[in-house]
């Protein structure tokens, strides 16, 4: 089936089981939130899907097996991700950051040629993430929220079909959160979106489905209401089952 399919994924670091047998199916067009306490293995799961962490099991996206491929090959299959703490190329300008993401298909002969104009897809991405005005600034000097938008812009020009976003609204103001949430909704029309997030209010408003992870395993899955009503989830989050 199309979309992201994870089967029995395991990641072990020096004997420590970070992800212990995760099964996950995210159909295309979904906006899936992954939540869970610190150390639940959420980021490691994304690291494994994108090839940055060694894993066993099976991961397919649109029927392409991802495990065992090199990181940049996985990216070229349309799997895009962001990192925690808004990670961009700090010493490059906004435009150059986007150029890097847009340019992987460029041939070796054009590498020494200067770009004469901004390609339309880069221009569109700049407008979508509202960074046109600051395109020549060094990305390291942007405020936190704009860096996170730049990350999303990079995924857009990279032609990512699957967006794996690691805490995309951490540290954002209310207005920025709303705008980001709406952007995620727009994205889901043509893309599959997976979001790791701690902000419950944000989750309630923008998630279409939720997966709860705990201690390297999937604890619960379903709609926001189903997950909130699940006693196992309440136990993990509150330490004891809530009396109804």
């Amino acid at each position, binding site marked *: 089936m199309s979309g992201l399919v994870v089967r029995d994924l395991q990641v072990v670091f020096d004997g420590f089981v970070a992800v212990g047998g995760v099964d996950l199916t995210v159909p295309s067009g979904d906006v899936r939130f992954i939540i869970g306490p610190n150390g639940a293995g959420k980021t490691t799961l994304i690291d494994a899907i994108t090839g*940055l962490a060694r894993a066993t099991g099976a991961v397919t996206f649109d029927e392409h097996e991802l495990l065992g491929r090199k990181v*940049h090959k996985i990216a070229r299959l349309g799997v895009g991700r962001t990192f925690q703490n808004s990670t961009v190329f700090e010493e490059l300008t906004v435009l150059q950051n986007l150029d890097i993401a847009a340019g992987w298909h460029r041939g070796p002969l054009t590498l020494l040629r200067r770009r004469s104009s901004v390609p339309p897809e880069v221009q569109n991405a700049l407008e979508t993430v509202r960074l046109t005005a600051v395109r020549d600034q060094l990305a390291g000097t942007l405020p936190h929220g704009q860096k996170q938008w730049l990350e999303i812009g990079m995924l857009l020009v990279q032609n990512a079909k699957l967006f794996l976003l690691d805490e995309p609204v951490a540290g954002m103001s209310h207005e920025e959160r709303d705008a980001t949430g709406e952007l995620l909704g727009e994205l889901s029309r043509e893309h599959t979106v997976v979001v790791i997030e701690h902000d419950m209010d944000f989750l309630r408003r923008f998630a279409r489905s939720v997966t709860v992870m705990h201690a390297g395993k999937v604890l619960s899955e379903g709609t926001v209401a189903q997950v909130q009503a699940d006693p196992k989830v309440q136990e993990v989050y509150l330490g004891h089952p809530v009396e109804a």
Partner: protein
Amino acid sequence: MTLVLSQLFTGISIGAVLLLIALGLSLTFGQMNVINMAHGELIMAGAYTVYMLQKVIGGAGFSLLVALPVAFVVAGLMGVLIEVLLIRRLYARPLDTLLVTWGVSLLLQQAARDLFGAPNVQTRAPSALTGSIHLTDDLAISSSRVFILALALIAVAAVTVVLKTTPLGRRIRAVMQNRDLAAVSGLATGRVDRLTFFIGSGLAGIAGVALTLIGPIGPTMGTNIIVNAFLVVVVGGIGQLKGTVIVAFVLGIVQSMVEYTTTVSVASVIVFVVIVAFLQWRPQGLFTLRTRSLA
């Protein structure tokens, strides 16, 4: 006054040599954080390229001109070979890299002894570069030193243009700033590493060509100069080209001024003490990356 000017120019020319040697390192060590102890032997390879070309071609001037691109490619390919066979298997293991490349450096020195003989060899400098340029009646500067200075400045300009304005340079900087982010953005980081290493090593070859104008060519020429080149890159700030340029010239001038008032060995001691003191005060070097991120 003449004396000061003449020492100043000597200092600048020492600085230019340092700069040429350090420029390649500022890519392989400064940008990629690879400690390649065999960098000096790549310089040696460039110098022996001039020696071989003079045997084949004959004319000193023409063979020097041909040697510049040939030495770049020869040293560059040797560097890529070292990168593909050894260094890429040792990324994130700096101590092992240091030991292994030191071994490579010994191997290459011995190979040079076997191929060209243990004694130093000489090349002929082209006639245009043997004389001096008289600025005033008693102030003369040797034309080979002027040539080296020009070569160093052109090399710095070329590296700057490639790094700052071309897509290739953007990729090199992107991979060095954040390897994981570059890879998930779809860049083939392994290929970028090889290209960076090719350019850095090729610049060592160019430095080797320049060194034939001011000294003999021998199997140990690389080890004699490589320490100073590492110092320049560290003091200038890792990955900071402008730091490398400034520090190369400052070190050259300090060296020549102190050398004049004392002796060569005392000058080296003083320069080392100054560097140690400077690094105590600014361990990150002259320039560092500016960023607002907390990471």
